[in-house]
């Protein structure tokens, strides 16, 4: 193994242990690793962003597409927010970004996230799963009606049962969310353990 690759592996393994030292106690060692990671991640993001600008803008201008100068100027205008008298200038590109972003999102939003989803929920399902999903969705949505509640004995009882089913559904969903979160964290831990085991075997094998 090349010296530089071996050094990279050793540094990565040491930093992994430095981060894990937090499980024992928060310490100076953990903070060094944490700040190093944040610094490297920020540096990497800046390099990639600058790379993208030079790649896109530089290429376009080099072939005479001067229209790309406009977004470049708009981008530079955002930096005026660091000087109080010129803050207003930065609002123009931000307003444009928000407007374009909202407009683009709205283009497919109604079809993708409303119509198709509603049809999928209410259309007759062949499987029992579909019927359960439809019922539980309605019960959950009913749980969030805060402006009205029925009066009278039996209607109120039935309504409360629907609310109870809705509440249980939300609790089940939250339990599932916790479960998947635990899975993600354990996966990351396993991945680092695999990395350490593989790195140590490679280092030992030379």
């Amino acid at each position: 193994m090349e010296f530089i690759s071996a050094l990279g592996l050793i540094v990565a393994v040491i930093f992994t242990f430095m981060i894990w030292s937090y499980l024992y106690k928060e310490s100076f060692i953990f903070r060094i690793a944490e700040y190093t990671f944040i610094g490297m991640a920020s540096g990497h993001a800046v390099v990639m962003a600058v790379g993208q600008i030079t790649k896109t803008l530089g290429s376009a201008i080099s072939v005479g597409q001067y229209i790309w100068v406009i977004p470049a100027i708009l981008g530079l205008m955002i930096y005026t927010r660091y000087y109080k008298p010129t803050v207003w200038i930065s609002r123009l590109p931000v307003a444009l970004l928000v407007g374009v972003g909202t407009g683009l999102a709205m283009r497919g939003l109604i079809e993708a996230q409303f119509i198709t989803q509603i049809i999928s929920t209410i259309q007759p399902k062949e499987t029992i799963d579909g019927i359960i999903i439809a019922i539980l969705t309605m019960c959950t949505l009913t749980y969030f009606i805060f402006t009205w509640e029925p009066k009278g004995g039996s209607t109120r009882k039935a309504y409360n049962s629907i609310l109870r089913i809705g509440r249980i559904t939300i609790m089940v969903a939250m339990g599932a969310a916790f479960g998947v979160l635990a899975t993600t964290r354990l996966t990351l831990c396993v991945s680092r353990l695999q990395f350490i085991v593989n790195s140590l075997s490679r280092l030992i094998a030379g």
Partner: protein
Amino acid sequence: MDETKNKPSEKMAKLDARIIYLAMFIALLIPILRPLGLPLPISDMTRKAYEYVDSLPSGSKVLLALHVSVGLWPEVEPGTIAILSHLFSKSIKVVIISWGADEPVLVESTLTKVDKMGKQYGVDWVNLGYYAGMETAMAAFAKDVHGLVKRDFYGTPIENLPIMKDIKSAKDFNLVIYDTASDIAPMIRQFVAAYGIPMVAFCTIGWVPSFMPYLTAGQIVGMVPGIRGGAEYELLIKRPGSGATTTDALSLGFILLIVLSILGNVIWYSRKIGMR
């Protein structure tokens, strides 16, 4: 002297958390050192994704869009390796694009672990690199690929890449694979709703509940959930890899978690009874 302090339930309730961390590390480490080969049933969502990809004819064009930060990459990497191996084995052309700054480098590292079966860069596959702007970039790419992308990740003008010659817009792709640790809705809006391109999601396990409605509604044709999905995909293409080992370790970790949860509840009840 207070006798309750000497009760086993009281001692267990005050157990140092670091002992639990150590037990978890040991549980996770055992299958890594010695894989157990625990059974792994294939879920419907992964099978659907595999079958759709497998049904694509040779020469089809697939967009592999990435939005997974470095911290969550280990969860989707086995699945990414498996899907790329599957695509290369079927001689499907692959265009890789990233919506986050980390991914171009991550996918480069992942590609070193993939058997490319003699496929050539620029002809059979390409890494276009990172494009900022998320949904605006997605929309711009879907509408006019050459309008947004001028050079690939290595700085080669895309006019010089044969694979990009026939790809002008989203309509030229047979399938979009979205490898993500974030919301899928922007991609659904800009590719599925706007152009009707079929989509398969490779996601971190945390996003599965959020993506399920899209799978049920047929807006995505298949889903490969996290490390488990990756392991399932490895089995489907008959190339078991790191995903299978990881699921072994996860299974053992979960057994320990279940035991600890039961133990925690037993302690809680026994303390409650003791207080009465």
